């Protein structure tokens, strides 16, 4: 193998180097200045993100196990930006809550390892690489969910996540083995040629989809979501709902649009049902949530239902709208989680009732939260509107008008509970409102990037046009 070929794995290699540097770095950083790890991690990851935007060639490695192209590269960049925002938002949390008792380096190492798994997962060219990536992306997160060792609920969350994840990946593996049994290969390119509508293939396919659906928390594989989000540290809940979900949606899209394309007649009906169930259940359960993390958990379940609208139609338009929506969703959700994080870190409050009168004490945080929620609800001129409108356009282009009707009905339901938060922050007055506090520089930066994303990604149309061009790669 040529050494220049290894450059195709640039994202993976550099991230691995970052992880190793952190391990080595930890040895040299003295106990007194241990928060230098945070600066180091953010700096190194920022560098990694910046390098990611350099041009990269298309190609395959290891006989097709690993492949990359402009679209995959773009998606890795999207994930990078998401993780960078997340790091900025959670740096202070690591410093104040974790570093009291332990070193804190492992937080970054685990997080990056999981991201590395996602890189491999979305670049995979066969099921072996896919499965390795899936596992590598899940296991560190389970450890992170249980990371706040002083809190019992955090351990519970970790256990729940690892058990459900093991179950899900077992199911997916079962599906993969059935697919192997019928097609005689684990390479995506070989399977495309042989996949047909026989019963064993279908069984394998459905089991495999179930495994992925767990990661995206589609109904009926969503039960872990709210509990895990509630118990896990906010940074990890945010990671699960944004990065992990985004990567899983992306690989699901690639597989559906290429490997399983011949089965489209079957999976579009399957997704139709799942989409309707996911939207309704997510939205209806979100209505009564008081805890902001559970609230965002159900809201993110509902959002996943909307994504399926674009997946269903299986063409370039669908791919472009899904990627665009995921990109916007990452920024919107990170902004919302960021505000929850900031408030929780300063005051320990996580209930919607605690947010009453927030605008009069902390106007900027309230405005960011409002923008994020409007973006999630899909109200112009913020980006979420464009993401949703285009998804619906994609679904309507194949004549799914009734599904779009159900979706817009759900948008109206979701608007109700998003407005409940706005109501608490803006309309209510409270005597014991959360007092004014200043955020640290990292948190501010993290929120700022997210807000810029929310404001710009929609109105600035070249973003969508670029994604649309790249989506032609899938055909």
């Amino acid at each position, binding site marked *: 193998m040529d050494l220049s070929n290894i450059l195709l794995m640039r994202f993976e290699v550099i991230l691995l180097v970052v992880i190793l540097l952190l391990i080595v770095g930890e040895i040299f950083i003295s106990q007194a200045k241990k928060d230098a790890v945070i600066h180091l991690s953010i700096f190194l990851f920022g560098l990694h993100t910046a390098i990611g935007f350099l041009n990269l060639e298309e190609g395959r490695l290891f006989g097709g196990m690993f492949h990359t192209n402009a679209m995959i590269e773009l998606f890795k960049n999207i994930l990078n930006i998401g993780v960078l925002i997340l790091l900025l938002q959670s740096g202070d949390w690591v410093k104040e809550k974790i570093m009291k008792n332990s070193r804190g380096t492992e937080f970054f190492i685990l997080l990056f390892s999981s991201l590395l798994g996602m890189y491999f997962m979305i670049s995979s060219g066969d099921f072996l690489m896919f499965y390795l990536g899936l596992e590598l992306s899940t296991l560190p997160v389970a450890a992170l969910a249980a990371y706040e060792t002083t809190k019992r609920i955090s351990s519970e969350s970790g256990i729940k996540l690892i058990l459900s994840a093991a179950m899900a990946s077992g199911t997916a593996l079962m599906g993969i083995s059935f697919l192997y049994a019928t097609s005689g290969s684990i390479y995506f390119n070989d399977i495309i040629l042989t996949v047909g509508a026989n019963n064993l293939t279908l069984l394998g396919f459905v089991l495999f989809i179930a495994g992925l659906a767990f990661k995206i928390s589609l109904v009926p594989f969503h039960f872990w979501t709210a509990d895990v989000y509630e118990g896990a540290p906010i940074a990890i809940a945010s990671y699960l709902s944004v990065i992990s979900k985004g990567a899983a949606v992306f690989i699901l899209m690639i597989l559906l649009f290429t490997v399983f394309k011949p089965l489209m007649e079957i999976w579009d009906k399957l997704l139709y049902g799942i989409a309707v169930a996911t939207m309704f259940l997510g939205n209806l359960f979100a209505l009564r949530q008081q805890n902001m993390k559970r609230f965002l958990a159900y809201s993110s379940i509902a959002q996943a239902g909307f994504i399926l609208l674009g997946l269903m139609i299986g063409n370039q338009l669908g791919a472009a709208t899904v990627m665009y929506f995921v990109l916007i969703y990452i920024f919107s959700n990170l902004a919302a989680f960021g505000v929850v994080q900031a408030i929780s870190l300063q005051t320990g409050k996580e209930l919607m009732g605690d947010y009453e009168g927030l605008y009069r004490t902390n106007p900027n945080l309230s405005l960011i939260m409002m923008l994020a929620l409007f973006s999630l609800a899909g109200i112009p001129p913020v980006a979420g509107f464009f993401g949703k409108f285009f998804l619906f356009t994609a679904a*309507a282009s194949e004549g799914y008008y009734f599904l779009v009707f159900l979706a817009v009905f759900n948008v109206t339901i979701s608007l109700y509970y998003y407005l409940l938060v706005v109501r608490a922050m803006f309309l209510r007055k409270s005597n014991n409102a959360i007092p004014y506090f200043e955020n640290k520089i990292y948190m501010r930066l993290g929120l700022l990037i997210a807000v810029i994303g929310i404001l710009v990604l929609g109105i600035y149309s070249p973003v969508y*046009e670029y994604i649309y061009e790249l989506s032609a790669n899938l055909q």
Partner: protein
Amino acid sequence: MDILSLFIIVPVATIVALLFSKNLRQARIIAMSGSLLQLGMAINLVFAYLKERAVSDDIMVFTKDVVWFQPFNIHYSIGVDGISVALLLLTSIVVLAGVFISWKIFDLPKEFFISLIVLSIGVYGFFISLDLFTMFVFFEVAVIPMYLLIGIWGSGPREFSAMKLTLMLMGASAVLLIGILGIYFNSGADGGVLSFNILEIAKANIPIEAQRLFFPLTFVGFAVIGALFPFHTWSPDGHASAPTAVSMLHAGVLMKLGGYGVFRVAMYLLPEGAKEWSWIFIILSVIGVVYGAFSAIKQTDLKYINAYSSVSHLGLVLFALLMLNKTAWNGAIIQSLSHGFMTALFFALIGMIYERTHTRNITELGGLLKVIPFISTIYVIAGLASLGLPGFSGFVAEMNIFVGAFQDESLFIRIATILSVTVIVITAVYILRVVGIMLMGPVRNESFLKLNKVTWFEKLGILLLLLPIVGIGVAPLWISDMILESLQPFIQGLL
């Protein structure tokens, strides 16, 4: 910079300036100068339009087209005809009057004016858009500030009303979205490219089955904000809880989006659907007209009286639009304008009365003509305009509507017309009842004897609204000509 985009840019600049304002004084001065500038622009636009119209035969003038989302063929496409020009003028006048009326807002003044101006951006943008996507964006931009405006600065059950209003209007816009997507995906039926542009879609022949399916969705989507019975319930609650300026904008301008959208999108683009479905919507609008007027008779809260009167008057707009002929449409547009000025004036007056007497219940009021003669006199004038007295704009509008409606000789429409004509009498009942109870008679309450005088900014706001009412009533021809000219292409599309 083109003359129309300024209607977006100037308010945005006003908002940016407001963000940096330090106190109430600065906030109101910035808001006032911004709105004043917009009024200037709107007046200038009327003259520019008349000049341009003399030399140009295009359906829309001052057009500008910039590609926005190329893959979907979405453009930022703007242009105006006589109808939009008139509605822009209405908007700018009501916004300025609204700023004057909210002169004494003390709670979060900066945020109040910002929300008010965001709302006006949505309305301006809606009236100048020629692209369905852009139009839809502005439609939602106009609706969402209402939640904050009613929720933060409202009174009574403000949280409930704000939520109800937002959800009903957003639900309607969700239905509308399907209608718009349906129009979009059928706009290439002749083999052309898919388009969101209204003028291009009008040239394409949308298949009749699609028109049948998507007309009711589009119509209802827009008509909910125009208070179509039975989807009007958001409006009285919203009005009653809203602060004065918001009621003015809400009834005066926001509800006009409904009629305008129905006319420009649903009827213009889906004429066959309109013909097939008009009967059911005629029934609903007649119910709205009569029911609204009867409800107004029974109310004791001044704001509810005017809210239901709005349901009735705007039902008349929808009714006239459904008559599908030029005279009635002319009446519908003038009724939109006239109602816009009139209700804004009413709500302004109600706000002033409430501020002084701290009640809106007419049974607790009485003899106001003796203690606050200026407000009371204007109230009588507004009332007379509302019941369609010649010399005011309401007369011109209703005259056109009913003359137009009688042109259709089918029995069904005759009956519908006769039923809705009764509203003239019923309107007189509820207007005169209020005048009798509230303004005439003895002063009910000692404390009313020492009510505050009318301030200069209140007078200014009121005169601003009264002027066009009388103006349209006394000299209706110039505005009527402007509208009739613009109606020509729509009529051709329908025949």
